[in-house]
C-alpha cells in the first residue's frame, strides 16, 4: 500500500547560483542527504534523509544551503497533528516503538518562565559583583545536625568533622551521559572543562575510559542497573559515586545500546563483549525496595572506605517527595532529581513525552518535605532536566536545589543543534556517535573551552542576579523562595512551589 507521505520532514533548499559543487555537504552528512552526481557535476538532495541538524548549512563555504520544514503537510487538525499521523503510519508499517532522543518536546507549562526574580531598591542596597565579593562556592554532601567544638588550651578546634563533600566553584555540574551514548571526545571535553573550572562531570552508566582516569578528582562515576564497567577500581577512581535509579526522560524503563554501537573501546570500558547489545534492566535486580537501596549505598561506601559521597538519582515522578525522603534515609549524601524535560540518547517517545512531573515542582516539594521532616541537612538536592540558561538555574536554587546538572545545554555548547536523532548514532556533530569519521569533528580542546565559556557566562549572570537581590553568597538564596514570585499560575501550583503571586508584597 502506498500510504507513506511522511518521508520528508524537511526540505533542503540549495541556491544553485551559490553552490560550487565542492561536496563539503556530501562529506559532512552522515545521513547521506546530499548526493553528488559526477555526470551533471551537481549536488542533489534526498530530503527524506535530512534530520535538520544544520551541519551542512554551517559548513557550506558559500552559504548556499538552507533547510525548511517541508511545505507538504498533512491536512491535520488541532488533535491530529502531522506528527500524530506520521507516528501512526510509521507504527502501522513496522509494528515498532517510536524512538526519539533529547528531552520531552511536548508543550507542557514551563514553570521557569512563570517565575520572576526579585531585586533590591532603596531599603536594601544591591551589590555590584564587579566591586564586592560574590560567592558561588557550593558544597555538596551530608551535613551534621550540629557542630561540636573542643577547647584545647584556649584554642578552639572542631570535634565534628564533615563526611566527604564535593566543592563546586559554581552550583552547576555536568549530567550523566554515558560513553556509548556520546563519544569519547565529548567525554574528554566534559571532563577537562569540569577539571579546569572546579566542578564535576558524570560518567553516566557506561564506565570510565582509561584516558580519563586523570580527571578522577572531578569525576562522578555512575552505577546503573546494567553495572557496566563497575569494579572496585572504577568506584575508587572518582570524587563521588552516583546510583542511577531513574532518568527523567524515561522513568521506569531501562536502556538499550545496540551492538553496532559497541566497538572495541566501548566493549573494554563497559566490560562486555564487542558487538553485543548493552541492556540496562528497568530496575536494579538487587533493588526491589528501599531497604535494598540502603544495602547498595552502604556496599558502595564500604567499597570506597567511606571516602566518597554517594548520590542517588531518581526521576521526578508523582511520589517524588516521599521517594526522595526514603532515599535520604537509605543513606544517600545527595539526591539527584531528574525532571520531565530531562534528556536521553534514546527513549520511546511515548515515555519521554508522557511520564514524570516538571522539575520545578519536584524541587519545591522535595525541599519542603525534607524541611518538614527535619532532614534537609542530611542530603543535598541536585536538580536535572532542561536547564536552558542561568535564570533557570538561579530559580532552581531559590526553590531549594543545592546545584543543577546540565546535559543538553552542555551538548549544545559542544555543537548539538537538538535534532533529536541521537539514537541513530549518526550525529554529524561528533557527539552522539561512535563513528571515528564523525567523532573527530569534536576537538576536546575546543569543546572544553566552549564548556568553560558557558560556565563562566552563566556564573557571571548568576552573580549579577544575586547582587541585584542584595545577596552575596549563594547559600543565602538556596531555598529562599521570598525572592520568587509566580505569574500566570494557579493557586495550587503556587502553593506547591511555595511562592507568592507577582504583586504580593513581603
Amino acid at each position, binding site marked *: 500500500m502506498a500510504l507513506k507521505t511522511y518521508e520528508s520532514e524537511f526540505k533542503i533548499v540549495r541556491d544553485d547560483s551559490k553552490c560550487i559543487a565542492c561536496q563539503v555537504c556530501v562529506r559532512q552528512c552522515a545521513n547521506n542527504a546530499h548526493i553528488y552526481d559526477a555526470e551533471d557535476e551537481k549536488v542533489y538532495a534526498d530530503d527524506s534523509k535530512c534530520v535538520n541538524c544544520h551541519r551542512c548549512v554551517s559548513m557550506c563555504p558559500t552559504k548556499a544551503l538552507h533547510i525548511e520544514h517541508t511545505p507538504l503537510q498533512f491536512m491535520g487538525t488541532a488533535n491530529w497533528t502531522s506528527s500524530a499521523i506520521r507516528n501512526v503510519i510509521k507504527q502501522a508499517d513496522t509494528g515498532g516503538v517510536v524512538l526519539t532522543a533529547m528531552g520531552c518536546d511536548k508543550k507542557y507549562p514551563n514553570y521557569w518562565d512563570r517565575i520572576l526574580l526579585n531585586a533590591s531598591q532603596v531599603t*536594601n542596597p544591591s551589590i555590584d559583583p564587579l566591586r564586592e565579593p560574590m*560567592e558561588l562556592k557550593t558544597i555538596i554532601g551530608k551535613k551534621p545536625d550540629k*557542630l561540636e567544638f573542643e577547647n584545647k588550651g584556649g584554642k578552639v578546634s*572542631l570535634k565534628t568533622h564533615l563526611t566527604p*563533600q564535593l566543592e563546586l566553584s559554581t552550583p552547576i555540574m555536568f549530567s550523566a551521559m554515558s560513553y556509548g551514548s556520546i563519544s569519547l571526545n565529548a567525554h574528554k571535553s566534559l571532563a577537562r572543562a569540569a577539571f579546569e573550572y572546579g566542578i564535576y562531570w558524570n560518567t553516566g552508566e557506561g564506565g570510565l575510559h582509561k584516558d580519563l582516569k586523570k580527571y578522577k578528582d572531578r569525576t562522578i562515576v555512575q552505577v546503573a542497573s546494567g553495572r557496566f564497567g563497575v569494579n572496585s577500581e572504577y568506584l575508587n577512581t572518582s570524587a563521588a559515586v552516583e546510583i542511577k535509579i531513574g532518568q527523567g526522560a524515561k522513568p521506569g524503563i531501562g536502556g538499550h545500546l545496540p551492538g553496532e554501537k559497541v566497538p572495541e573501546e566501548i566493549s573494554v570500558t563497559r566490560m562486555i563483549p564487542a558487538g553485543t547489545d548493552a541492556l540496562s534492566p528497568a530496575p536494579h535486580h538487587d533493588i526491589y525496595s528501599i531497604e535494598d537501596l540502603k544495602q547498595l549505598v552502604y556496599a558502595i561506601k564500604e567499597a570506597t572506605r567511606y571516602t566518597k559521597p554517594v548520590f542517588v538519582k531518581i526521576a521526578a515522578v508523582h511520589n517524588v517527595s516521599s521517594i526522595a525522603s526514603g532515599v535520604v534515609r537509605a543513606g544517600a549524601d545527595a539526591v539527584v532529581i531528574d525532571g520531565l524535560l530531562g534528556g536521553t540518547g534514546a527513549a520511546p517517545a511515548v515515555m519521554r513525552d508522557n511520564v514524570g512531573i516538571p522539575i520545578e515542582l519536584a524541587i519545591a516539594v522535595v525541599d519542603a518535605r525534607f524541611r518538614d521532616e527535619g532532614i534537609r541537612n542530611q542530603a543535598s538536592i541536585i536538580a536535572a532536566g532542561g536547564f536552558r540558561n542561568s535564570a533557570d538555574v538561579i530559580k532552581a536554587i531559590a526553590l531549594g536545589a543545592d546545584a543543577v546538572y546540565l546535559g543538553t545545554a552542555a551538548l549544545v555548547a559542544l555543537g548539538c543543534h537538538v535534532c533529536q536523532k541521537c539514537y541513530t548514532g549518526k550525529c554529524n556533530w561528533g557527539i552522539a556517535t561512535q563513528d571515528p569519521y564523525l567523532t573527530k569533528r569534536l576537538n576536546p580542546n575546543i569543546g572544553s573551552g566552549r564548556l568553560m565559556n558557558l560556565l563562566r557566562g552563566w556564573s557571571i549572570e548568576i552573580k549579577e542576579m544575586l547582587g541585584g537581590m*542584595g*545577596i552575596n*553568597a549563594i547559600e543565602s538564596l538556596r531555598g*529562599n523562595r521570598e525572592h520568587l514570585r509566580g505569574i500566570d499560575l494557579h493557586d495550587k501550583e503556587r502553593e506547591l512551589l511555595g511562592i507568592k503571586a507577582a504583586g504580593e508584597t*513581603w
Partner: protein
Amino acid sequence: MFRFEKKANPFYEKDVSGCAVSAIMNTKGRRFSSEGIVKSIANQRDRSNGLGGGFAAYGIYPQFAELYALHIMYQNQASAHKTEQYLDDYFQVEHKEVIPHRHDTVISHHPFLRRYFVKPYPVGEKTPDRIFERLSEDELVIKNVMRINTGFDGAFVFSCGKNMGVFKGVGYPEDLAVFFKLEEYSAYIWIAHGRFPTNSAVWWGGAHPFSLLDWAVVHNGEISSYGINKRFLENFGYNCTLFTDTEVIAYIFDLLVRRHDLSFEMASKVMAPPFWDEIEKMPDEEKELYTTLRATYGGALLNGPFSVIAGFKNGIIALNDRVKLRPLVAARKDDFAYVASEEAAIRIVQSELDRVWSPAGGEPVIVMLEEPAAVPTAP
C-alpha cells in the same frame, strides 16, 4: 489596628525597615536608670519615623529573678481570658499584673498590656497532659510561647525571659519610654530601638526588640536571606510568627548559642562568615573549621545590610553584616560599654570616652559581665 488577627500564613511575611539602635551596659552588673538610653535613642530621632520603638532591660525583676517574666499584649479581653486560662494549665503563675503605663501621654491607642511571673510545673502529679516529654524548662517556655503566638487569636507574647523585660509599641521610642514609666526601672543592660518601617503594616508586636527567653534583639537592616533563614529554623522547630526578619536573628542566636552550644564568636562567624577567599588563605585547621561552619550553617548566614545588637543575661553582642552596609559604633568608658548606630548617640550620654571605634564588617563586639555572679538576683 494591632494586626493580631493576622496569624502566620503558609507564606512568609516580613517588614522592611530602616532604624536606630543603641545599647548601654555596665560590665560590673551594676544597675542604672533609663535616663541615658532614652537620651541616646532620642538623639537618633531622625532615623525612625514614629511607627515603632522599644526597649529591653536586664536585671529589672530581681524579686522574681527565678521566674519567667511573660509580657503579653492582647487585642481584647476575650483573648486575655482565654490565654490566661491556658497559662494556668501549663504554668504556676506566681504573680500577674498590668504592665504599668501612663494614660496621659501622646500614645493614644494601645493593646491590653499584662505581665505574668511564672514557672513551668515540675514533672510530677500536677504535670499537665502533654505531648512533649523530656523538655527543659526553657524548651517548655519556648513551645508554649510559640503555641500562643501562632494559635491564640489576639494574644501575643513579646517577652519571656528571666529578670528581664521588653517594652515596645507603635510610637517614637522616647514617647514609649514615658508611656511605660521606664524611669521606674533600673537595669545593668539597656537596649533601645527606633523604627522606620517602609510599609504601613505597623503593629505593636512588630516593634523591636524581639525577644525569646533572655535574648533581646534590635536590628537596623533588611535581611535578604530571610526566606531561607526562616526555613532553616523551621528545620529545628522554630516557627516565625512576627512577620519580620528580625525575629530570625533572635532564633538563630538561641539555636546556635543555647541549643548547639557555640561560643558567641563562633555564632557571629555563622551569621557573618569570612569570605571563601579569606578562608582559602587560612592555616589548614582553621580552614577546615570555617569551611565546616559555612557548609553546616549556611542557612543561618545573614545576608543583606544589617547592624544588630543582641542582649542576653551575661552581656551584649553587636554585629554588622560582612560588608558593613549599615552603621555601627562602639565605645567604652570605665565600667560602661556603649553601642549605637551613630557616635552622637553615645557622646550625648557620655562625652568623655576611653575608646570609640567602628567595628569592621563581620567583626563582633562582644561585651560580657566581668562576673556573671555579680548580677543581683534578690532585692
